[in-house]
């Protein structure tokens, strides 16, 4: 039993974090609101992150969801724009098309995927647009995208119509991977928002003192930290379960997403409240991350959906969620 990243895994995570810290600042995020920036994707692709779980003879690193989800936490921490979780989830499903795979591994073009009938993020710019339906995967052969205005402009939404054909691979697994990586990004986003709030509480003064000295503020932030800390272990558990094809994988993925969605909500609310009116301004950075949370909290199933999924497993019936 070793419930932590080992040395190599931690080094990989730190390398990604270092790259992101310089490449994906808040200014870059604001600029990305006018479109995905491929210059952001390529340095990450050079670290090999889109091929983490591919075998080495396919140009990958022969690793697993454990490393992928650790990377996704770091992507969330900087609010990485675009369909990162979806692309990371889908790359192992395109290995039979070498040109497509090459472009995916190089970070040239993202991949778009959603559960059938849901809006699809960043479909317009994607190399392929997929949808999952239970254990099936389908690809749009000639997608027609109808734009939907998105609260988070770095996550452009479309309704996609057109003919589809079947695509090889397990749709359930693709959905679980995208769900897990989205949950991991929410954990990273929560870290960022909490850091902003704690820094603000130490700096902002009222009544002649830092507001972080007040118990009402401290307790709010303590609850936020608690929610975040208890959302971390389930990410690693779900990653390990997917990597080892454990029986509990579906419950573990739903646990991770339910807790990450709730933690991000708790942290976002606390962070906004602690920032006071400043948190409500466009100028402060908080909303850049808050808006991603609003989107990712509900992408790939919100907390309620995943609790219902767990209830179905637990109560040994399947009243809920037959559509996935």
């Amino acid at each position, binding site marked *: 039993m070793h419930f*932590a990243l080992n040395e190599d895994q931690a080094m990989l995570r730190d390398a990604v974090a270092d790259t992101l810290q310089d490449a994906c600042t808040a200014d870059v995020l604001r600029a990305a609101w006018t479109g995905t920036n491929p210059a952001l994707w390529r340095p990450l692709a050079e670290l090999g992150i889109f091929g983490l779980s591919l075998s080495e003879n396919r140009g990958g690193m022969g690793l697993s969801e454990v490393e992928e989800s650790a990377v996704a936490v770091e992507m969330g921490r900087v609010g990485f724009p675009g369909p990162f979780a979806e692309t990371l989830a889908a790359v192992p499903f395109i290995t039979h098309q070498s040109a497509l795979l090459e472009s995916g591994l190089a970070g040239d073009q993202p991949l778009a995927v959603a559960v059938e009938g849901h809006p699809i993020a960043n479909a317009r710019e994607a190399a392929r647009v997929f949808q999952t339906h239970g254990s099936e995967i389908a690809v749009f052969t000639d997608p027609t995208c109808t734009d939907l205005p998105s609260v988070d402009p770095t996550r452009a939404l479309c309704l996609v119509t057109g003919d589809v054909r079947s695509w090889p691979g397990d749709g359930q697994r693709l959905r679980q991977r995208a769900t897990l990586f989205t949950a991991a990004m929410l954990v990273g986003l929560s870290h960022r928002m909490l850091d902003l709030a704690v820094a603000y509480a130490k700096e902002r003064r009222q009544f002649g003192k830092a507001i972080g000295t007040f118990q009402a503020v401290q307790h709010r932030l303590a609850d936020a930290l608690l929610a975040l*800390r208890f959302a971390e272990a389930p990410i*690693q558990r779900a990653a390990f379960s997917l990597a080892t094809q454990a029986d509990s994988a579906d419950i573990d993925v739903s646990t991770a997403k339910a807790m990450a969605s709730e933690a991000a909500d708790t942290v976002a609310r606390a962070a906004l409240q602690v920032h006071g009116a400043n948190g409500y301004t466009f100028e402060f950075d908080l909303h850049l991350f808050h808006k991603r949370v609003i989107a990712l909290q509900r992408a790939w199933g919100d907390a309620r959906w995943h609790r219902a999924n767990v209830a179905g497993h637990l109560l040994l019936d399947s009243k809920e969620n037959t559509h996935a």
Partner: protein
Amino acid sequence: MDLHFTEADEAFRIEIRTWLEGNLVDEFAALKGRGHLGDMDGVIPGRRRWEQRMVEAGWTCVGWPRAHGGRGLSLLQEVIFNEEYARARAPGRLGHIGEGLLGPTLMAFGTPEQQARFLPRIVDGTELWCQGYSEPNAGSDLANVKCRAEPDGDDYRLTGQKVWTSLAQDSDWCFVLARTSTEAKRHHGITCFLIPMDADGINVVPIKQITGGTEFCEVFFDGALAKGEHIIGEVGGGWRVAMGTLAFERGASTLGQQLNFQTELDEIIQAAKHNGTAADPVIRQRIADVYIRLRIMRLNALRTLTGHDDGTPPRAAMITKLYWASWHRDLGELAMDVLGADCMVLPESGELSELQRLFLWTRSDTIYAGTNQIQRNIIGERALGLPR
């Protein structure tokens, strides 16, 4: 990252499971599920005999070093032991205060003579312990203890009152914080004494709780004699000792409790299936929520152990009390909502049903061993580094 247990750990799990199955029979079968939270004062004579059965097989103080009579188990194996103990629904341990709190405190702060005198009798179950820390005006503000210790030759006479003392009426010894100086700053005037509960001048008055049980007591000291040789640490050094004990209280001893909680949740799920509320979408959401959070508590416990293979108690425990206390409070409320109107009615026996007692007991979780508010203060200051 590897979340599998080793073969040695799995073999250990089978060993303790097999022993419990083979021994929780005959007179001990009736003890299953008894003596836990809300029922800690229940079936004491039977549980004393059960302790002796555990002693004979070497299952007490399993996490203690071999040099002190323990099994020297790793923290992970200690957790496995606690999990299997809970899974078997074995009765609440009578010796847990000595084993989990006083023993580790003595190992950290006691003299070799004190260790030789007291530790073997915790291992062999012949001396039960209670903890005399809280007072009517020293709860969250523990440093405000007023119980006085006046010198009497080499020894001391204790005068004052302790409260919320678990199992005081059944204990042989008590470890007590008392004030040896009113001159020194308040943290520096406190000393930790060991005192036999049959000393003259000790009066124990059980407190009746909202569950109807009497798990804890008031303890009155009126010039009771505590020997100078039984002071733990320095005279005036009791605060450091007390902080050490509280770290044990919030540390490894709670890491295996998830399976006790699982047993309670299973009972609620059974009740929900039985009365049909398992089909109610709101109840389903809440059952899933407590189930998810319980799984996470176990994950966090296991994660906390990584990096603590040397036996030091994990510090992340400071954040877990707030989590499990709030979770258990919510579980009690879920139990009542599953029962619906039936929760108002006592069973024919006139005693609380298990779920009713669970609800009432869980009103205390967010208060004892540091209230939720105190826990949030600690998290704010130590984990988030917020200014004082």
